């Protein structure tokens, strides 16, 4: 068994959370609240040392870089709702960040996703092996039929209906794949914890 106190703390907290599987209980709730408290504190400290001090405050205090006052003042407006009279000021940081972020969403989704993904769908249907021709055809067909499924302006009847139906089949296979992978992820996390208990704490492996 491990002798360091740290490993014991970690192991006991791990077991406290697993006690939830039996039923909800005070031990679990204690662990849960420690987690929220510790993570929030961690965020604050890291943000300060990594970013807020060297990028915002230090240039202002040490180098007299007054332009940094702008993001600081706008950022402080996030606290405006505490004073009802000026609570509307919070809209300034909200709209500023939304403006910049949404503009970049428009640009980058087109440059980084729509265009390259369209290009990647222009697949060759000749001059490659038969398996590839079939696979490429299925990809093109799958993309088109999925798009047809999400076309809301026409009733899904006739040819459109057939495409939509096939679109949903493609999606179901894709969701099945995601499902398998998600299961894998959750199990991996469990393995990680049990490995910790057996290896670092109990020293069995």
């Amino acid at each position, binding site marked *: 068994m491990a002798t360091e106190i740290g490993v014991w703390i970690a192991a006991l907290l791990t077991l406290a959370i697993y006690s939830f599987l039996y039923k909800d209980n005070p031990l679990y709730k204690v662990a849960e609240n420690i987690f929220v408290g510790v993570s929030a*504190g961690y965020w604050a400290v890291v943000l300060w040392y990594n970013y807020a001090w060297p990028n915002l405050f230090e240039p202002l205090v040490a180098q007299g870089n007054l332009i940094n006052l702008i993001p600081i003042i706008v950022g402080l407006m996030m606290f405006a709702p505490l004073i009802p009279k000026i609570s509307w000021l919070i809209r300034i940081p909200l709209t*500023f960040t939304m*403006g910049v972020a949404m503009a970049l969403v428009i640009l980058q989704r087109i440059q980084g996703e729509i265009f390259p993904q369209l290009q*990647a769908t222009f697949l060759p249907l000749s001059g490659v092996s038969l398996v590839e021709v079939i696979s490429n055809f299925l990809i093109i067909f*799958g993309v088109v039929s999925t798009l047809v499924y999400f076309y809301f302006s026409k009733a899904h009847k006739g040819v459109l209906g057939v495409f939509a139906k096939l679109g949903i089949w493609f999606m179901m296979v894709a969701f099945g794949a995601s499902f398998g992978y998600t299961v894998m992820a*959750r199990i991996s996390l469990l393995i990680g914890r049990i490995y910790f208990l057996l290896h670092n704490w109990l020293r069995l492996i």
Partner: protein
Amino acid sequence: MKQTLPLIIVFAFGFFVIIAFFIPLGAFQSASQTFETWYTGVLAFFVFIGIFNIVKVNANKIQRRLSDWQYSIILLLFLILMMGAGFIGGPEGGLFNYLFEHMQIPLGATMFSLLAFFVASAAFRAFRARTPEATLLLIAAVIVMIGRVPIGYYIWRGFPGVVEWIMNVPNTAAKRGILFGADLGLISMALRVLLGIERSYMGRGGE
């Protein structure tokens, strides 16, 4: 003022960033850089306000003796402990890292691993082939689940190849179709925000 100024801000900054994307002139690029830096600065305050809200909600809970208020004391205690350790000892201070390594990591890692058990019980109870669509989903899921782990390879050497094909062909096709649809949705929402038609995000601040 309360309505118009925010709408002018969102419109002006948004369209400036879009236009600057197409204009390589130095002035436009450095202005973009400045706005993006400000954005990051303002966003840092979002985190601070998040922490502030956690404190407010829990202090309120303790003060009004709402149900389970005792746990809020624990939460605040550890929040203060972590911040104290970090701000007094520095981010590389012993206690700060100790708390991170021996409390935050195991707690965070264990929290989500609980889901492994729920996946298992759901696999038994809820994942049923009630419709043709659900059947297709389950078959694909079972192939991936077996084919992606070493036992699949052990049972049949061709398994990983089948899984890769599923991932590369039907999965890619459907995910790409979904992606195009989602991108259009996002762009249309972004446009509505920039034009001030969509304002619900402002509600976070109250009236």
